[in-house]
């Protein structure tokens, strides 16, 4: 009886998980389908994010990283401006146990409306950047192909990012 109950539970869980891979999403081939909780209690799935957008920016940051907080408002502005054209940015925090409680407050105070996935184990961050020098971002197309990566933040970097986004979305529109 117990074995039956366990089997039923596993089947139930399989069913739940299978729905996450429903039709309409072509699985991008080059990156794993990372799944993270988000700061507002939701869920982030990388494959779904890639499949639903033409261009995706994954920006890794932490509450204790001062340059990250200089860069994030610029990324938010780019997300607002190019959102209607198929560009989406995700602000993925790598805050660990010590600073996790401050993430939501930081998101509010910096006026971030981007989805903020939580990566406290740094599973996803380490995949894209083993050295994890923050801030770090990776720009990808809907197939999971990396278009550009960037480490650190110098004032003016956002101008270069804007050029890359404009170029990609412009070419894609032709």
């Amino acid at each position, binding site marked *: 009886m117990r074995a039956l109950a366990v089997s039923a539970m596993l089947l139930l869980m399989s069913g739940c998980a299978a729905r996450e891979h429903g039709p309409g999403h072509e699985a991008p081939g*080059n990156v794993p389908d990372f799944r993270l909780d988000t700061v*507002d209690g939701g869920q982030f799935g990388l494959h779904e994010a890639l499949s639903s957008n033409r261009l995706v920016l994954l920006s890794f940051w932490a509450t204790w990283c001062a340059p990250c907080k200089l860069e994030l408002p610029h990324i938010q502005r780019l997300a607002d401006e190019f959102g209607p054209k198929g560009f989406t940015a995700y602000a993925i925090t790598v805050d660990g146990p010590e600073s996790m409680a401050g993430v939501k407050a930081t998101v509010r105070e910096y006026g971030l409306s981007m989805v903020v996935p939580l990566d406290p184990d740094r*599973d996803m961050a380490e995949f894209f950047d083993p050295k994890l020098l923050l801030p770090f971002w990776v720009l990808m197309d809907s197939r999971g192909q990396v278009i550009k990566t960037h480490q650190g933040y110098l004032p003016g970097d956002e101008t270069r990012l804007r050029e890359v986004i404009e170029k990609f979305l412009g070419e894609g529109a032709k």
Partner: protein
Amino acid sequence: MKAWRGLLAALLAWPAAVSAQSPTFDSTWTVGLHAHGDNGNELDDDDDYGDVLSIYDLKSRWGDHTFSLRVDALRFVAPPSGDVIRDTGTADYADEYTIEKLGWSWRSGPMRVGVGDQYVSFGRGLSLSLRKIDDLGIDTTLRGARLRWKGKLLRVEGIGGWTNASNLDPINERLRFASCTPTFEGDEFSCNPLRIDPADFIGGVRVESRYPRFLHLGVSEVAMRRWDEEHTTWVHGASLSLAKLPLDGAVYVEAAWMDRSEFGLEDGSGVYGSIDLDLWGWSLTLEGKRYDNFILQTKLPPDKSHFSTDRTFVYNEPPSLELLEEIPYDNVNSTGGRVRLGHRFEDTGTRITVTAAGFATGLDASRRTIEHGAVTMEQDLPSRAHLTLEGGRRLDLPEGRGGLERRLWHTEGKLVVPVHGPHSGSLGWSMLFWDTVATGDERSYTQGDAYVGYSWAPRFSATLIFGIDDELTEKINPRLLKREQDKHRQGLPADPANAIQPVRTKFFAAQATWYPAQWLIVQGLVGSLRGGPKCIGSVCRIYPPFSGAKADITMRF
């Protein structure tokens, strides 16, 4: 070693049938060339040598399979040796080449299976936290197996293996563990059993329910058996996370109990909680903790060198709630809380944060009370300029009579000014002004750095760093002290005062970073940097001062 070779061969030979996709390979290779001069700390065992440090990371993906490999290498040039090492007890200037991390994982839908080196954390780290903390040069994985199931309603994770700390320490650029005991008898010495890794066994399981989606309930069980012990420490943990509350609120509570009954030792316990609310545009975060005898760590060998004293490998990471990273303190027995209030004024672009914290730490006679308040202001200025200012006051007072009193003012600031196009300048500082009182003796000293910088986005940045640390103005040179002791033993005139020498209190360095291509970063530094403690959460270590030149080249391909 054979086992790892076998695993490597098996992984490389994985048949193409597993996936129609072609494999991808991403490499990051960092090579550091470091020339160490006299860092002015009056120890002879860390001066005048060179080293080459290489860290190579490979991530390869083939269908649902991910393979990771890290190879570390360290080669010394003219390292300290002979009497210098014998007198001060260090013996970790040994060349090293090692496969530091090796792992394979497979994902299929909600299932993930991993074998080899993996980082593991349960909840917010009260029960278990093995992760990479780059700022502290800590990189400990669990070498074993891990199984994870991430369903929508239920998450289950099981782990088992042995702790694997990186052998090379990137902070002091040496082998992490002293290779031999510092007590020499003639030319004989015995080797440290922790020569390579702590190799403590850790097994655990965590189950987390997510129904409804805004309520996460977790329970965990961890067992740790240290490398030289036959008893097990059991850690029972539970957590509750509640999101989407009124006022955009969220609540998190985690508790853990460390059962050491098999040892006949006192159990440990820890509780941490946080509440976050949006009060009409003001963010309020309340945190509280109570830890009693609460630490899960390896056991250092009795013959540890003085370099290993700040390397206690800790396998849990309860939040400390401390506001400054430069101050280590007792988080094993600590009770207290922190309040943070933040707001952004839309019309002026000003962000204000007010933080207050209070703790009682330590046991019995060493019990202390800490009170800390700080204010941070950020201001967006015209022409994309940005200003950050922070200031605070921290009091660290003994509860009993006669202990050390430590009073601190601290200030931090940064101004970034775009000059023209991609060119910008910056100015910043981070200073600690201490007053200490011990048995009526009052002392004041300053620790901190100030810097000016220039950047040309996205190609280049340069910074001049000025440092000060006058906590100690003179120090005993252990080698000279031993010489005086030897003289005394031989009946020759000796004076221990001859072993006291001034230490460096002012530091200056120039640093530059060049990004010639997307795949290449070149960093260089010349001059001297002050050392000192650095803490991330409850994990701390001492940075050694540095003098000399460094070049680090990072390649991605």
